[in-house]
């Protein structure tokens, strides 16, 4: 189905996300931080990017900004995985070009139903 890039510095979250998505038949690549994600994204066009916000090296907000600079990623949905339910981070993410957000904690079912919103 879709090829998805999952970015999170927390291995458990990353694995949970990719396990869930793979279980739903998607092709998932993992990245530890923004830098690694950007490197992967520059080599291949993913259908969807799911990224944590708080990460070392390059955080999720910066990642979206960088991604939107790439011709391939102008319209690709980028969802932020965030615990901040306050509007602050969401607004920052939106401004940077993020498509939307998924508020942690979420369960696999919520994750799957949410990404349906952006996958064709």
């Amino acid at each position: 189905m879709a090829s998805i890039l999952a970015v999170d510095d927390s291995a458990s979250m990353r694995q949970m996300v990719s396990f869930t998505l793979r279980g739903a038949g998607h092709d998932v690549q993992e990245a530890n931080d923004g830098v690694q994600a950007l490197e992967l994204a520059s080599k291949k066009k993913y259908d969807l990017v799911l990224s944590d916000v708080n990460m070392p090296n390059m955080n999720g907000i910066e990642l979206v900004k960088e991604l939107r600079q790439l011709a391939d990623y102008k319209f690709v949905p980028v969802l932020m995985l965030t615990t901040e339910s306050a509007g602050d981070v969401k607004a920052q993410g939106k401004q940077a070009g993020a498509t939307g957000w998924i508020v942690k904690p979420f369960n696999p079912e919520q994750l799957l139903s949410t990404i349906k919103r952006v996958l064709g």
Partner: protein
Amino acid sequence: MSIDLSQFHQIFFEESFEGLDVMESQLLELQPQEVDAESVNTIFRAAHSIKGGAGTFGFMQVSEFTHVLETLLDEIRSGTRTMQRSYIDLFLQSVDCLRAMLSSIQAGSEPDMERAATLKGSFENILQGTSAADSAEQDLPSDTGNTTTADVTESGWRIIFNPSEDILQTGNEPFRMLRELQELVGADYLTVIPVTDNLPEFTSLTPENCYLSWILEIRSNVSRDDIASVFEWVADDCHIDYQPLCAAPLKNTHDDTPEIRTGAEQKSAAERENGIPPAEIDSGRTATLIPEKISEALEIAAAQKSKPSVSARTARSSEPSSIRVSIDKVDSLINMVGELVITQSMLGELGQDFDMSRLIRLQEGLTQLEQNTRELQESVMKIRMMPISFAFSRFPRLVRDLGSQLGKQVNLVMLGENTELDKTVMEKIGDPLVHLVRNSLDHGLETTEQRLASGKSAEGTITLNAYHQGGNIVIEVKDDGAGLNEERILHKARQKGLVPETQELSSEEIHQLIFLPGFSTADVVSDISGRGVGMDVVRRNIAELNGNIEVKSVRGKGSTFIIRLPLTLAILDGQLVKVKNETYIFPLVSIVESIQLQKRSLNHVTGSQYVMKLRDEYIPIIRLDEFFNLRSNDEEFENPMLVVVEGDNEKVGIVVDDLLGQQQVVIKSLEQNYQRVAGISGATILGDGTVALIIDVSDVGKNLEKSGKGQSRSEQAA
């Protein structure tokens, strides 16, 4: 589809404990006056990850507790609040508390929530203390904040959805939102009416922009909140207007709306009225969505989705401990195995039709096999090696807490943190190290006043140093305190009857007294050390690891405890010796020297004790053949060798028939396979298949002191 998340628990625990370690070390470095933004960020990030993971994996106690902590951190991070010493303390306590909570959960028991509740209360008091209004407590998105009344009773909604032109550039696709809306209303009626008024001339049209808007009519009793959730991500950039629909017919309502009088819309309205099945959604010129079509597509998607089955999860009960191994180590191992396989096939081929002309090739092959085996062994051992920083990491905290408890200013210096050590040895050396560091802090370092009075800096220094030396790892615990008080130690030892009143001891001998069982010079049994568990326990623990400990001390300058440990417990560098027809092995580390035994240097002392003068020292002599009852009569050695070994800081000379080679041996436990035997620490299998026993040097020395049996006939040794 339900996914069992418990398979991720172990890794969550591991990374959480790592996160807590990071928080702790960063907190310890923080100075309240000059808070480093990056440190606070790092702490925040760690807390944040723990909170997120805990929430996801259902450990709500942990995520709730972390939340308050994170809130305060966030205020500090954003500058609404300044860091205080008391906050750092509170954070450190929280780190402990979280560690305990996670450990209990990991072990499958209920965490102790009392401590968490107390700490949580402290955080809440701080947080409520100021007018920092925008704490992260607000959970509601601002756009729905004021209109959350559920309108379930309404018969439907008319929504004017006017997206911003650049909506597509954030990856949002109105088409998918409409589809989601369709899913939401299910079998109920959704009408989508596109508005194309803003569509520019083709020449001025930017294909990346969205010029359309829509009027959506929902005949369903879904709540406004549910509908809003579909537009959640775009609500801020789009104009979305909700109008409740009454029972009034659809046609009338939009007839009243002038802005939707467009060709496309009228066409779709006409289709609807005429009962013509509207077209599928395509491009912007959208007509009515067909619930059947969409649900059909979704069913297919669902079927595909549920195909891969979720593998059953193994029972969690006792999680095995794991180590992280760098991929380099694993790669080199695989490399090694590859070479071994090549050598093996080469030897196999050689063996098929072997004749003496190919002997040289066989020997070459065997040499190569030996090299492969050795390299493989080294690589496997390296996998178990971890940097000693794992054992050192607890000390900054320990020293900080104890220092403030004792009112001493202490600077902890850690050197050689990357020195690698076997995991098992590391686990076992932790407690003795803690004891030594506590001891240095409590007894070694003077109080600030005393230090200043003796012309030292107010701040005492404790240095932990680790390095490799030969096949050993050496760990030093050094303080710049007062040094050992020799008079007091001697006095105490005499008082306890450990040293006869008349006997004079050298400084070095006095220093060794602190390792005697039950010896403690602390006048007051303090909370920190001197609880009766003394240096003898430390020494015993280290001896169990085949290591030794010594102390060097200079009055007024400080003391250094030096621990020597083998790098691993599984393999030993051994000296093979021959006694009668048996082969025994001495650990190479315990051998001081091996010499020819000269009869004239032997001296008979009280009882049956024999000693030998070796340079300036007298050392007791023991015959191994007697010790193990191998002697049938008083036969003489032809050319006896004396192996001088050191165990428990005592030198002992052991008489053997001959010295054989030195080699690495794999230690097999005698206790597990047979039973404990005095003077033997284990066994190994030699290349020819025979079993050789490994001598427990300190045990032999102890038995010598007790029985004196070993010396009864040592005058005949030479």
